[in-house]
């Protein structure tokens, strides 16, 4: 009985720790992606500015397709640089 309690508690603590760390929003990749976007701040994507697009593209990389001035080569470059997972 006590063994079950110990294991469950430690499992909870580990899970909550992982959740807190992954929600940490300070991400150096956002600035790097923002530098690779065209930088016109035209709002064609609907996010207001290139910084808004970078903030949302971290979570969902398919949103990058909404950027109209972004050429296909640059899109592939961004995908390869930041979202490449083996």
């Amino acid at each position: 009985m006590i063994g079950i309690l110990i294991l469950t508690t430690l499992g909870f603590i580990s899970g909550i720790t992982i959740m807190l760390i992954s929600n940490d929003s300070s991400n150096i990749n956002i600035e790097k992606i923002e530098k690779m976007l065209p930088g016109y701040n035209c709002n064609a994507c609907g996010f207001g500015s290139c910084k808004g697009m970078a903030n949302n593209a971290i979570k969902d990389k398919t949103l990058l397709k909404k950027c109209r001035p972004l050429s296909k080569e640059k899109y592939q470059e961004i995908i390869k640089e930041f979202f490449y997972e083996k």
Partner: protein
Amino acid sequence: MSDLIKIIIVSIFAQNIILSKNLGLCPLVGSTNSRKNALGIGICVLIVNLISSILIYFIYKYLLVNTNTTYLKTIITILLIATLVQIIEIIMKKRFNSIYKSLGIYLPLTTTNCAVMGTVLLNISNNYNFIQMIVFTISSSIGFMLVLYIFSSIIEKVNKNVPSCFKGYPVAFIIAGITSMIFMNFSI
């Protein structure tokens, strides 16, 4: 003090964690590509080993022994090592993206690395106190890194001169056997 020096020398040379105890062979064979990867894997193993050894030491000494549940040590070791590797992977993905990509699959593979789990459980079964535990952990990780570096340097040169049916993994295992015979001389 002299027993600390004895622990250092024994765990790096005489009872090396890869070549004598045969734990952690997957990164050994997987580091045949480059030397920088070998150092990267070694540093990951060092960090995970150190933090999880300290945590398991306190949990074992103050929680498991007092409640008579020492049978839980294996599964709690696995749980803590897996959590730590996840945390390190998340932090590295956010801050050090280039190192994260160059390590590739070998960073999550330290979860199932027998060298990490073996060191943690050996600390418990050898009944070390706190300072001895830290010295043992650091020196067996250094021994791990040393063997990985030596091995990848040898393989880099040897891989050019062998017949094509031996290239890659076959010659890696042969060289591992020969290297462990070399290190056996330290234990006599």
